[in-house]
């Protein structure tokens, strides 16, 4: 484990009961053993189960997009209907409604983001995989950095560096004395808090979802092993039902977080393309 991993472990670790009781799952869940290790130009790469899951998710969504968009018919088949529904969600409800009339160039990027995130998120409930690559901080971080570069580049291209900084630091219509408060908050928000929260929001949701599932699944197994003691026959089914319920809750989180990430990207791009007031 890396140093940040052990720091994470020290925060989340729960002392295991010496009496052979229930051992809570720890952060080690997210550090599976390496399948392959290699080094290129002094940078160490480790291929783990999660990396492979990410490849599988990406290949699956690519295969779906390619297969569903072949032989398009006027009356859509089931796969084409699903594809058209999700694509028009991104194009009409996210890109056009949020960005406005200049939405066209951003549709491919937003669509790619949405489908990539939803495929990777979905891996948190697909049987035998059961962990989302997005619950490793690196994946959402790279996506957030991409978005950060994009909306800043678009804003600088549209307004010029000076104009962009002026619009951020001195929002129009704010009385001069309030600028003491508004300017630092706006600068902090646009250049630091936006990419940070974009990455952490996606990561935290998937991370917490996986931990919940692990806790209730392990709890069920542990309680079933202790059946006949301390009303375990009551709590084991309860724990199992909670695991089931949390799985369905994960479906909601998977779709919602992919949607929120894409909508927020579109919102930031909207700020970058629209003319100053």
């Amino acid at each position, binding site marked *: 484990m890396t*140093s*940040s991993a052990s*720091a*994470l472990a*020290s*925060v*989340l*670790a*729960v*002392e295991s009961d010496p009496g052979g009781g229930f051992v809570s799952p720890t952060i080690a869940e997210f550090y599976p053993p390496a399948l392959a290790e290699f080094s290129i130009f002094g940078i160490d790469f480790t291929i783990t189960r999660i990396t492979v899951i990410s490849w599988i998710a990406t290949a699956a969504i690519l295969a779906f997009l390619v297969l569903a968009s072949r032989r398009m018919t006027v009356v859509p088949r089931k796969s084409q209907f699903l594809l058209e529904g999700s694509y028009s969600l991104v194009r009409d409800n996210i890109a056009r*409604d*949020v960005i406005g009339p200049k939405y066209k160039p951003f549709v491919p990027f937003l669509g790619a983001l949405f489908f990539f995130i939803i495929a990777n998120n979905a891996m948190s409930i697909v049987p035998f995989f059961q962990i989302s690559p997005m619950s490793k901080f690196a994946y959402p971080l790279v996506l957030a950095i991409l978005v950060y570069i994009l909306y800043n580049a678009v804003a600088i291209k549209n307004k010029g560096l000076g104009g962009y900084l002026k619009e951020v630091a001195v929002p129009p219509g704010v009385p001069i004395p309030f600028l003491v408060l508004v300017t630092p908050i706006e600068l902090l*928000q646009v250049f630091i*808090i*936006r990419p*940070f*929260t974009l990455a*952490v*929001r996606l990561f*935290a949701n998937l991370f917490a979802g996986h931990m919940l599932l692990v806790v209730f699944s392990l709890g069920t197994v542990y309680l079933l092993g202790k059946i006949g003691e301390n009303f375990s026959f009551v709590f084991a089914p309860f724990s199992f039902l909670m695991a089931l319920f949390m799985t369905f809750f994960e479906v909601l989180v998977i779709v919602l977080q992919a949607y*929120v990430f894409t*909508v*927020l990207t579109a*919102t930031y791009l*909207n700020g970058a393309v629209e003319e100053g007031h």
Partner: protein
Amino acid sequence: MDVLAEIYGSIGSVGYGLAAIGPGIGVGIVWAAYIQATARQPESAGLTRTYAFLGAALSEALALIGLVVPFIFGAGQP
């Protein structure tokens, strides 16, 4: 001294619980206002959605900062 109750693990989890109260209320207010605005004037839904998401993201940022602070300041401790 008699020990009545004892807490193991990290106090960071308690801190995060406290830190999430404010943002929880804030995000609730933002979406309540959005729903109210949409109910009163349905055609403004598309117009105000952007601001609703911006406001919710900004208040949620506080909860997310609360989430990472224990990791940052708990790093050096056993």
